[in-house]
């Protein structure tokens, strides 16, 4: 067995060392990464993937720590990928998100990995998507991706997460502008963190005002949840909303599937009916046997014959 296959096998068994090594591979070795992902891919698709984004200082890391605790209380295993920016000047990165999550480190049902953007624009690293697949294949029920403190263009999280949570907090200044500019379209749920501050309701109203600008008819209207991450207040409600969104997605998917199935059946039924009615008509008019004879005599090929008959019918 090659090293990559061995690591893939370890990932599927939920072995933490293998998970860690696998993430290093997808960060550094594109060719081996492809083999690794190919090996684990059939085992992905079970986890619910949550993206947390929002301006720096909103309290994303602290909120994640409390979310993980609540998921653990609910019996779920959790993977966390925390992305921090790489310095474009030195190529180095200071990955400090763990500081707020360190107490979770010893929990067997939790795996946390810090990741640098490596100058990938969009708020996540290039390898984040693959790291999510690795944690998914390793059997984590929930995967939370924390983006870099987002401005207006860090919206790549939508390509990775199924539920995007945009975290905001009162007193961060003009960041409501960022929500207007780019984050509004991607948010499935809004969080106003630090809700114990007196101007928190103003932030809620600001977000509501922004949401009202959007007059498209939507099947899902993003709720606004108030939290106090340091105490954990509002976190169970946030998880409930995330669960609601997950169920919404499943219904959507089911609906989409039944739609596709109905369409296939309808097309088939139409095809049957049209075909038999045309053939019956051709037979009645004795044109069917006539052209059949011509095909047998090699005077015309079947495709051209069919086209000719149909053209006559259409006229």
């Amino acid at each position, binding site marked *: 067995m090659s090293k990559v296959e061995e690591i893939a096998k370890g990932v599927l068994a939920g072995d933490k060392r293998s998970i860690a090594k696998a993430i290093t591979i997808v960060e550094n070795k594109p060719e081996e990464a492809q083999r690794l992902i190919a090996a684990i891919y059939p085992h992905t698709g079970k986890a619910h993937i949550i993206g947390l984004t929002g301006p720096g200082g909103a309290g994303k890391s602290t909120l994640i720590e409390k979310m993980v605790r609540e998921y653990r209380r609910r019996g779920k295993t959790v993977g966390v990928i925390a992305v921090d920016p790489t310095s474009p000047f030195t190529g180095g990165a200071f990955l400090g998100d763990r500081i707020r999550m360190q107490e979770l*480190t010893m929990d067997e049902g939790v795996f946390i990995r810090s990741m640098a953007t490596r100058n990938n624009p969009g708020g996540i690293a290039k390898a984040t998507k693959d790291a999510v697949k690795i944690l998914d294949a390793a059997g984590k029920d929930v995967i939370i991706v924390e983006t870099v403190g987002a401005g207006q263009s860090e919206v790549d999280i939508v390509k990775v997460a199924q539920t995007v949570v945009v975290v905001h907090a009162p007193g961060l200044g003009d960041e409501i502008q960022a929500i207007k500019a780019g984050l509004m379209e991607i948010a499935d749920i809004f969080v106003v963190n630090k809700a114990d501050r007196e101007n928190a309701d103003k932030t809620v109203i600001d977000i509501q005002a922004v949401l009202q600008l959007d007059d498209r008819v939507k099947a899902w209207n993003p709720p606004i949840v108030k939290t106090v991450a340091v105490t954990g207040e509002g976190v169970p409600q946030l998880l409930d909303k995330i669960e609601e969104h997950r169920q919404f997605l499943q219904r959507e998917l089911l609906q989409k599937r039944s739609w596709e199935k109905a369409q296939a059946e309808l097309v088939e039924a139409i095809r049957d009916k049209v075909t038999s009615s045309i053939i019956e008509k051709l037979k009645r008019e004795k044109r069917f046997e006539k052209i059949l004879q011509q095909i047998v005599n090699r005077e015309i090929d079947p495709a051209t014959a069919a086209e000719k008959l149909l053209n006559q019918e259409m006229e």
Partner: protein
Amino acid sequence: MQSEGKSERKIRVLIAKPGLDSHDRGAKVVARALRDAGMEVIYTGLRQTPEQIVETALQEDVDVIGLSILSGAHMALFPRIMELLKEKGLTDVLVFAGGIIPEEDIPELKKIGIREVFGPGTPTDKIVKYVLENAPKREH
């Protein structure tokens, strides 16, 4: 701007503070120096247990661990960390230490696998150079 070499593997470093120290100024200075030298530095904050440090090193798949300690508990905490690293199979990780560590303890620390000890006032360049030269060259 740095040139982004495709095959270049970033050195990942965990800067960890075991024990009950109440400040982390030195650890942060070293973390920043290593970052500025192009490394990816994971910092976990104060008051970490040996178990937390080793588990973090495992999950983050680091190449290097820098232990910073001021409390004087290094002779109790460092051997435990080295033991746990061995237990978890993290034997190729480069471990160095810094902080307030008396000269006479250094031979014993080196014996248990701490590869270098940097005292107060060590220029950060020296630490950066040491890590660049000694970080393991890994395949995975």
